[in-house]
């Protein structure tokens, strides 16, 4: 099991990229003691049977590792949500994309902390050169959004170490402003 929500989200963004998505949006909203998480992509999507398999830890998409029978990203996330008595929904349609939605009480003793969000955002961005990624945190009426395309444009790409470090510092500053520490 992952220690924080950010690790779960890294797994789910990776799933989206593996599904050929060119767009993925991750949102974590905190409102009146409830945390709502959504991860939506425009990847190849899944049939009903594939959706059921995706939640089984002893199954994987089978494209990257055809002989492997383990895939833990989504099952780990589902396990976490169930453990904290939350609600989970997986919607997916072949050719359209996949949306994962979860909500749970923030004050549940086993609810994971959000974790190192700025580092997680930049690490996710290092998965793809082309895909657009949107990361959003909402707390009440405060919203913090980072788009991969904006950072890549400002930095002339997000491939090299210097660009990734500047991106990390930028996201960290904006994130601290969002948290009220700036």
């Amino acid at each position: 099991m992952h220690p924080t929500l950010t690790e779960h989200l890294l797994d789910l963004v990776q799933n989206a990229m593996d599904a050929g998505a060119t767009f993925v949006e991750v949102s974590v909203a905190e409102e009146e003691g409830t945390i709502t998480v959504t991860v939506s992509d425009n990847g190849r999507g899944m049939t009903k049977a594939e959706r059921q398999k995706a939640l089984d830890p002893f199954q994987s998409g089978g494209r990257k590792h055809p002989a492997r029978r383990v895939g833990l990203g989504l099952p780990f996330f589902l396990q976490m949500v169930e453990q904290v008595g939350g609600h989970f929904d997986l919607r997916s349609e072949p050719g359209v994309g996949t949306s994962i939605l979860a909500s749970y009480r923030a004050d549940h003793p086993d609810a994971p902390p959000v974790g190192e969000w700025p580092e997680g955002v930049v690490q996710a961005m290092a998965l793809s050169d082309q895909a657009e990624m949107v990361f959003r945190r909402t707390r009440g009426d405060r919203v913090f959004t980072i788009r991969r395309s904006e950072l890549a444009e400002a930095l002339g790409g997000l491939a090299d170490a210097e660009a990734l470090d500047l991106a990390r510092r930028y996201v960290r500053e904006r994130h601290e402003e969002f948290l009220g520490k700036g």
Partner: protein
Amino acid sequence: MTKLTLEALRKLRAAKQDEMARREADGSSGTILIGMGTCGIAAGARETFDAFVRALAEHPTLKRVAIRQTGCMGLCYAEPTVEIAMPGMPTVLYGRVKADVVPQIVEEHLLKGRLVNDRIFDKPAVDLMKPRKS
């Protein structure tokens, strides 16, 4: 400290464009690929990723090295795994690269051009080499 706006990022990078173009032209960059599947993350690959970014970003000859992440590379038992492709050197897959090993790899492999032999895992898992038709 000055606020780091998108405009500030643009200027910081623009000032270095000429230098960056020269480096690309002489092929002195390379690529570091970090396995960050569920297994890699559990073994500390996030800290490894950050350690490489921080170590290379400020280094005059290494800051243009590309750093990418990918899913499981098939060596879950040896996570975190890191593939390094530097010009003039063989592409090498290192295993058990926790953040505290990163300075050694930067110093030996990236700067001195010497392999860190006791960390090399040269064969990906069988299912990556020959996908079975099952």
